[in-house]
């Protein structure tokens, strides 16, 4: 589904953050060796929601291009696969997590790029999350 508005983009980012937070909480229960790191990611996801919403609700204005800033962003391109069947190894879990992160990073990067100079602080908030999630990917890969 193609995004039309900033409100949709923020809702979609909230969905991604929520879904991936649940994914990490689930991993924390299943893999003791990564519990701490997975829980920290889930917690950070909630912070990402707060920061994105703060940026959006703080700058949204009748003068900004709120309804026309996310042209070309199709949510189908960023759907994440968070199911992990029983019996999968810790390494498998890490690989799934990397894939999840890469998809989410791609969403934030693309959304920041198309809305740059149109949505004030929102693209910057997206870029900050991109940076944090890229660090996550490095961390997850280092555990492989």
């Amino acid at each position: 589904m193609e995004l039309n508005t900033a409100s949709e983009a923020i809702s979609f980012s909230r969905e991604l953050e929520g879904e991936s937070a649940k994914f990490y909480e689930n991993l924390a229960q299943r893999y003791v060796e990564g519990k701490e790191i997975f829980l920290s990611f889930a917690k950070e996801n909630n912070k990402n929601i707060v920061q994105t919403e703060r940026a959006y609700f703080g700058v949204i204005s009748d003068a900004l291009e709120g309804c026309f800033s996310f042209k070309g962003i199709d949510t189908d391109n960023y759907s994440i696969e968070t199911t992990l069947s029983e019996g999968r190894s810790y390494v498998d879990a890490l690989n799934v997590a990397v894939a999840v992160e890469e998809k989410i990073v791609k969403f934030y990067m693309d959304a920041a790029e198309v809305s740059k100079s149109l949505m004030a602080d929102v693209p910057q908030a997206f870029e900050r999350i991109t940076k944090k999630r890229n660090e996550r990917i490095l961390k997850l890969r280092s555990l492989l």
Partner: protein
Amino acid sequence: MAILEEPIKGVPVIKNYIGGEWVESKGELVDVVNPAKCETIAKVPISTREEIDAAVEAAQQAFPDWRRTTPLARVRCLFRLKELLEEQFEECSRIQTQEHGKTIDESRGESRRGIENVEVATGIPSLMMGYNLEDIASGIDEYLIRQPLGVFGIIGPFNFPFMIPLWSAPYAVATGNTVVVKPSSEVPLSQRKIAELVDEAGFPPGVYNLVNGGRAVVNGMLEHPDIKGITFVGSTPTGRDVIYKKCGETGKRVIAQCGAKNYMVIMPDCNVQRTIPSLMTSFFGNTGQRCLSGAVLCIVGDDAFYNRFLDDVADTTSKIKVGYGLDESTQMGPVRDVEKKESILRYIEDGIKAGAKLRLDGRKPTNLASGYPDTCFLNPTIFENVRPDMRIAQEEIFGPVMSVIRAKNLDEAIDMANSTSFGNGHAIFTSNGKAARQFQYNIISGNVGINVGIVAPMAFFPFSGMKDSFYGVLHTQGSEAVRFFTESKVVIQRWL
């Protein structure tokens, strides 16, 4: 994506807020209609002359104590109001969409802009300060103090039901005045919500009053001897011929912000990719119902640039999703009511008769989500081959209609823009600094955009306007509002 929940349930009967009490009006009740669904969502009274008089009396009685309240104590009420507005930001925004029809992004934008005025007004202890000079003559000092005047009337329009009264009211009360607010009877629910929060914020009774209604309330304000000034946003005929004229006759201060016909001048060196979203917001945001909307797209450049640019504009415009504003995917809502839609349709017919070419015909809304009547909906319309003397290039349509004109060069574009009777929010799109400066220097417009399609000044700048777009001297918002709502008193002192 989701359809957001509507905050207004049932059909409440709206009351007036006078002297700190919610008072039932004796006036006739009229329907408040959600234009997207054509459903009655509230009943609003057309208050009587006696009721506006009672509100002014309550405000007048509250004035002496409120004036004596320290500026810090006054702004503490505003800080509390700001806090409450933030807490109920989303509800306030959804009310706007429900009563007006605008998209949820637009409503949230309106909420933010309104709250920013409350924030700026909390700086009154600094903003209201006067100035002084010692020894203007030996042993003689001179200083200026700013004093509130009394009761002010604030008359709101239908297109920004939440924000526009907040361009005035926070400054008026922060400087020690008292106010009577009259929202548009088409969209009274946002101001009712604000009055509820004012009440909760702890403003003393009578400082902030709300009277719903129509002409009788406006006339009551204009003729009341205790009203010291009026702020008004609305059409030019009413602003100029009624509000400004009557305030002149009765010696009231006045700010009358009126209509517009804004040119968006496109230079061939503009950043096309970034310009087009700005144009969509400018022409079709708020369904074209705002005095800062783009109305004329004036393209400078050769045939190749013109054709390429207009193809892009028409293509993007044709994909705008029209629907209910509480559907997050909607990019353009309905117009406010069927009479306004009919007026827009008449302008489109007029443009066709005058020889303009319909590039995109928005008269019949298409792809409207099922379940919504098309009563108040239109699709965006684009006219080509428009001449500057046509009515569609001269008069304010107040709807989603773009009139495209070509200009040989920037000078000609500026001349055409300056030939309209309005001067509100013209803009240029260019990557050339010299062209931008030439435009800024020569254009007759109170607000000027450079690569910005909606030139809405922030709360700490005045909302300006020229020619038929503005009547008055000082403007709403920021330090000019502080001056409007205060009298400068100059003291010269010598101690013998």
